[in-house]
């Protein structure tokens, strides 16, 4: 990591995420920013807190048949099917670029089995340009990945197994909202050794063509993201922060429908230490920079010295 290239400033936005220093608390969310080169000319990585790659699996995956995406009220449903180049090509073709990126890079790892995750994470952890591994245990599109994210016992075993092989980078566990009680899976991840929690992944959803009576996505169901899920995401972060993360001293990366600095403030107040931008990048890849600027303006207006003063600041009485 070229720490020297990271811009630190006196905007009060520098964030310490479980020991990883970020120039702002604003990251990109996995699957919405490619592997790095795609936005290089339109998103100033020097001013981005962190970058999370598309999910990487051991073997290359072509992904689902189209339609893979459909726009719904205030959001999108997607069923991309974890299309990715696979671990080998990721290392050969993508890491050289990542090594030069002037921001903190997290790699999101997905798998079909516990061994897949362990092998992928161990291999990626050897590359010191990667500051952390985010486990995607919550993608609702691929049936084989779903069980880890929804079964607390399995999740804990998976996180323990991966944590055991990670020597250098931080371990992030990305939680699925498609559960009855997210604090159970959050606790399982923390007990298993997660150093950071990220939430939320997309909500399972369906959209139907009323002329043909067929699903609009070839995969039938997909994951809902965008402004439509924002209050749901906030609710989940609020609960995980109060019931699990705060006492365990585990930072949360909050995401789900964030489009501007006001939304970001809401997520921080609910308990997030950092936030990630997904779907909004499709409309404007520079959104994270605009949010960071908006956050520093907010700090000034409210006489706050540091963005961390917002985390968990939600007032519940009085």
């Amino acid at each position: 990591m070229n720490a020297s290239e990271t811009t630190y400033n006196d905007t009060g936005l520098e964030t310490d995420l479980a020991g990883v220093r970020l120039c702002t608390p604003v990251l990109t969310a996995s699957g919405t920013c490619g592997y790095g080169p795609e936005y290089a000319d339109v998103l100033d990585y020097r001013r981005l807190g962190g970058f999370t790659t598309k999910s990487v699996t051991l073997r290359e995956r072509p992904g689902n048949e189209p339609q893979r995406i459909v726009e719904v009220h205030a959001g999108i449903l997607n069923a991309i099917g974890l299309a990715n180049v696979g671990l080998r090509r990721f290392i050969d073709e993508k890491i050289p670029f990542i090594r030069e990126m002037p921001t903190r890079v997290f790699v999101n790892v997905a798998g079909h089995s516990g061994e897949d995750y362990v092998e992928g994470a161990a291999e990626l952890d050897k590359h010191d340009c990667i500051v952390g591994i985010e486990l995607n245990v919550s993608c609702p599109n691929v049936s084989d990945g779903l069980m880890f994210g929804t079964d607390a016992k399995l999740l804990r075993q998976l996180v323990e197994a991966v944590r055991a092989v990670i020597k250098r980078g931080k371990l992030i566990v990305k939680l699925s909202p498609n559960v009855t009680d997210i604090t159970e899976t959050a606790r399982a991840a923390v007990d298993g050794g997660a150093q950071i929690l990220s939430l939320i992944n997309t909500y399972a959803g369906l959209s139907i063509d009323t002329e043909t009576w067929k699903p609009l996505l070839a995969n039938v169901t997909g994951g809902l993201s965008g402004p439509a899920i924002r209050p749901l995401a906030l609710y989940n972060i609020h609960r995980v922060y109060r019931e699990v993360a705060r006492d365990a001293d585990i930072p949360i990366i909050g995401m789900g429908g964030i489009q501007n600095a006001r939304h970001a403030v809401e997520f921080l107040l609910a308990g997030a230490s950092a936030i990630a931008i997904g779907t909004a990048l499709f409309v404007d890849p520079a959104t994270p920079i605009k949010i960071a600027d908006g956050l520093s303006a907010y700090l000034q207006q409210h006489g706050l010295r540091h963005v961390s003063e917002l985390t968990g600041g939600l007032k519940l009485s009085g």
Partner: protein
Amino acid sequence: MTTAESKPTRVCGRVARVAANTAICREHRAIEFTTADFPNSEPGQFVQLQCCDASEPSPRVVEWPAGGFPSLASGNNWDGRSAFLRRPFSIGDQWRDANGLTHIVIISRTVGPGTAWLERLTPGEALNATGPLGHGFRIPSDDLPLVLVGGGVGIPPLVYLARRLDELKRRDATAIFGATTRDLLPIRLLSEPATDGKPLPCAELAGSARFPAVITTDDGSLGMRGVVTDALRKWHADRGNQSRVDGVVFACGPEGMLKAVSQMTRELGLSCQLCIERKMGCGLGTCLSCVVRVRDESKAEGRRWALTCSDGPVFDREELID
């Protein structure tokens, strides 16, 4: 990473001003907007336009017809949805004026909330544009005969290509533009087209230039009765029906038309570039939603998914599978 000195090839979220919004036929509107420093584009490239007022979409009030229900037919925005993602539009023309302002024209057909929003824009209003995106048509450098085959809403990128070919003074270039009926043709004509499929310089380009064109309509209400492939076959026959006429066909239009043109050009020994449409999320190569199958011998299955937004939208006929 782009260095500070290198000129950007695309810009994101550029605020432009609407200069004009005029109907060019029953279903298509030409929307011209201006902005400073927009990168140069190639015909076939597209822009992604934000088609809602705020970054935060709010549902609109649906107007119910008196005594009835809003129609559920597709394209009818009965649930009051506003466009959240940007919408892709082929660049229909682009030029820089004496003041250095870039003018861009898109031709839009109203089919849903985003295009309905565009329809209501008035001169002076703001429009947020990203582009130019994708790869355009590749114009061969040797003096081969060129045919521009467009159907309906696929015509705009070919009008831009026609103007480029006109500037390049390509002698042997013909447009074949088709529509279902007279008032659905999204291009202005300066004179009546021939009914026998003979190219006449009737198509209007910016600056009142004329381009040789054959116009077809399904019902014969304008130009030649029939479809664009009928006119393409005639164009070929008029060249003496040689078993092989070297030439390049540039095609854009509905899926069925593209398939027919693809098949016919293969039969006639013409090479063919197709500008295709796919549902897009980002237009920037990150959401992986705009996939199309292409041949790839390096893969075990002999094929892979390509991205329409960044590998296309123009593909060579031989690259595309089905």
